[in-house]
């Protein structure tokens, strides 16, 4: 195997917030009945996390699980472990109608951090991002200007943003424009 390379290879930018491409993140799309115990076990084994409720995201570092829809989860694991974790998950779920598939390379992940991080996202997503409305522990799938994307907060000043790999260049440039110096909105 050659050294795998993420879409933008850790590109970064500093404006009213810091924008960084996070590099490769192991990701598994898991579809199934979220109330099924086998699914809960598969998630727990892979990430140590419990089954998330509607729009919840339980993420610590490179591991975690996000609620994507009523029958879909995004399971995060370290990139190097994704094959092993997927194999274990598939085994746990044998006999349960479900779909677990590696999508690590299909995505790009960004970190947007700083006191104005909420405002940067607020310029490109039609989502209320005040501290009362959106907090760490939640995930939101929405639109980032013209592309689909999802984001959650690692802490009160840090977002992680996920989009399709092919749109990584657009997403990075978009975040750069939204974080351009002098563009603080002064709302959050």
């Amino acid at each position: 195997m050659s050294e795998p390379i993420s879409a933008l290879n850790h590109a970064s930018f500093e404006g009213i917030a810091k924008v960084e491409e996070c590099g490769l993140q192991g990701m598994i799309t898991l579809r199934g009945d979220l109330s099924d115990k086998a699914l809960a076990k598969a998630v727990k084994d892979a990430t140590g996390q419990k089954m998330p409720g509607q729009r919840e995201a339980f993420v610590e570092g490179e591991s975690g699980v996000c609620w994507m829809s009523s029958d879909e989860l995004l399971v995060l694991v370290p990139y190097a472990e994704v094959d092993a974790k997927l194999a274990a998950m598939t085994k746990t779920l044998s006999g349960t109608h479900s779909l677990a598939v590696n999508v690590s390379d299909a995505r790009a992940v960004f970190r947007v951090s700083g006191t104005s991080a909420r405002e940067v996202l607020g310029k490109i997503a039609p989502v209320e991002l005040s501290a009362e409305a959106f907090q760490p522990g939640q995930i939101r799938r929405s639109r980032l200007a013209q592309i689909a994307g999802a984001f959650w907060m690692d802490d009160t000043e840090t977002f992680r943003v996920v989009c399709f790999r092919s749109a990584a260049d657009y997403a990075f440039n978009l975040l750069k424009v939204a974080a351009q110096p002098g563009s603080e909105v002064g709302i959050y």
Partner: protein
Amino acid sequence: MLILNCPYCGVDAEETELAAGGEAHLKRYGPGSSDDEFHDYLFMRENPKGVHFERWRHANGCGKWFHAARATDTLEVFGTYSAQTTEPPQEIREAITAKRPGWTWREFE
């Protein structure tokens, strides 16, 4: 620009997150159906001024299809509900009746 509540992910989604999917509760006619049945299934729509039932998809969101009951004249939304039903649920019909007594739509009232 409309806002509809996605019953699957609970988000009050604005129209730019949504994709419209036309009229709700169509009954599919396949092979064996008459020309008239098939023609009506493909082309004939209620297109009312007033109470209407539609399909929407939370396309830039959780990706789920859902149903919306709303008024095409005032854009009032009476409620949104699951896509996995062939008719409007009772609570939606009651919500409409509360606002628009005497409404009808196809065989529903």
